[in-house]
């Protein structure tokens, strides 16, 4: 009895609060209040609007910026994951803790703090002023948004790579060295290929929140940097055009699920359970 029914409350819950809301968003993306009769009618206007160059550009910009952030996180994060994985075991635990600790400070607040570092009268520009260099325009542009993304999502890249690296059997590396591989070849032919599952989950864990964020651009981009997430937020909360807002959400959802699907193909270590997405 326990086996049979203990899953039922959640099946009901997930139908009402996960499946149905998504169906509702798809529904809203396809209907519109008719201006003549005041009733709901079928319309793909939301998707049509999205295809306008203005909005397509926002979408492409979001994807490119998220890709840039993901690449930067990988390039910056891989070495640090490697360094931590080669430390003494007690130190490893402590360093992993240090990586997670910042997440316990409110994420909006940490992002906001960058304004007082990068801003016009911020710490960097004051320092530049002291040593007699001209001030830089670091704040409220795409660069600031990029820094904010890398800052916020770097731990998501480092942690999975570190986990995989720390589990690599040291004797595999020794075997490669005994067989005459120098350190560069060991890195390229042994360590990196073995860490691919970590890299894959790192990439998905950074790219996904980066492409859909609206907080980072609205705090650090200062209105000059509108991304796809801002567009959704505006349509739902400011403009009130649910048809268009839902259409963007649906496109965003399909895009993410598809890119996850593609990423999964490169993941050599499949778990036993299959997934529909």
């Amino acid at each position, binding site marked *: 009895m*326990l*086996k*049979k*029914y*203990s*899953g039922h409350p*959640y099946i009901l*819950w*997930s139908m009402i*609060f*996960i*499946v149905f*809301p*998504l169906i*509702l*968003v798809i529904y809203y993306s396809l209907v519109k209040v008719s201006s003549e009769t005041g009733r709901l009618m079928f319309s793909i206007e939301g998707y049509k609007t999205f295809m306008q160059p203005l909005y397509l550009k926002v979408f492409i910009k979001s994807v490119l910026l998220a890709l840039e952030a993901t690449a930067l996180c990988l390039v*910056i994060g891989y*070495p*640090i994951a490697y*360094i*931590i994985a080669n430390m003494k075991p*007690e130190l490893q*635990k402590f360093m992993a*803790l240090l990586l997670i600790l*910042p*997440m*316990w*400070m*409110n*994420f909006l*607040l*940490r992002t*906001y*703090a960058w304004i*007082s*570092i990068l801003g016009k*009268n911020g*710490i960097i520009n*004051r320092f530049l002023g002291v040593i007699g260099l001209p001030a830089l325009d670091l704040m409220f542009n795409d660069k600031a948004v990029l820094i904010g993304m890398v*800052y916020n999502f*770097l731990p998501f890249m480092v942690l999975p790579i570190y986990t995989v690296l720390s589990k690599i059997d040291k004797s595999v590396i020794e075997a490669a060295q005994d067989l005459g591989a120098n350190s560069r070849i060991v890195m390229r032919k042994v360590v990196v290929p073995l860490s691919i599952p970590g890299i894959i989950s790192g990439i998905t864990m950074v790219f996904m*929140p980066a*492409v*859909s964020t*609206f*907080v980072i651009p609205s*705090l650090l981009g200062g209105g000059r940097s509108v991304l796809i*997430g801002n567009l*959704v*937020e505006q349509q*739902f909360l400011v403009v009130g055009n649910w048809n268009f807002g*839902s259409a963007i*959400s649906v496109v965003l*959802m399909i895009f993410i*699920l598809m890119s996850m699907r593609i990423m999964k193909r490169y993941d050599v270590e499949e778990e036993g*359970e*299959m*997934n*529909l*997405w």
Partner: protein
Amino acid sequence: MVTSVQSSLWKFLQRFYTVLIFFFLYAPIIVLIVYSFNDSRLSVGWSGFTLDWYVKLFEDRQIIRSFYYTISIAVLSSTIATIIGTFAAIGIHHMKSFRKQLILSINNLPLLNPDIVTGVSLMALFVFFKAELGFITMLIAHITFNIPYVILSVLPKLRQMPKDMLEAAMDLGATPWYALRKVIIPEISPGIITGALIAFTMSIDDFVISFFTTGNGVSNLSITIYSMARRGINPKINALSTILFVSVLSLMLIINKRQSKESKKSI
């Protein structure tokens, strides 16, 4: 000789890089903490040491209320999600392959979907049913995105459990409830605790989903900070975050010390 110089240079580079990265990660936090002691409303420049913000913090009703909402939503949602999620995991564990795949895929949706899509879809649901946005809707939203974390932390523990343990207990005369309490729960409790902790953390730090599913003046700390950001963040918020950060830090250090002491004892 050359190799030893090279390896020590290599070591130095590694240390330098580590320090640099952690400086990058901690710089904003240091800035926040420093400004919580700054005798000026604006977060530019240093105008002297003060503890004023820590005193004024407790007089600010808006901040105290949003702190209260954050904590109560986190406690309630992680508790309810842990209960529903643990039962769900037991049920899913015993399902046949197709149903299992289907429900696990649905379970993964809130994890894979961007937060903003989850937030918007829940808001659409609440508006569709004409539910008044506020504490309850935000709580439901938090439970919904927390359950998947609980399920995903409990399932591996169930898989590690010997297959026929439940049957064995029941053959020996245990009622299903008794078997659950005395056999299954103790066996999977590490997974339950991990799941509950992840759920609690996710709930405390959530902004996007709460932002779309709340209303009626009910706002958690993140929402309060977001609405303050346009006018400039009040140092009182810095003070509150410093208190929270230091308490979590000391809690973690205590747990860490205890664990290392225990592991030394066992050696």
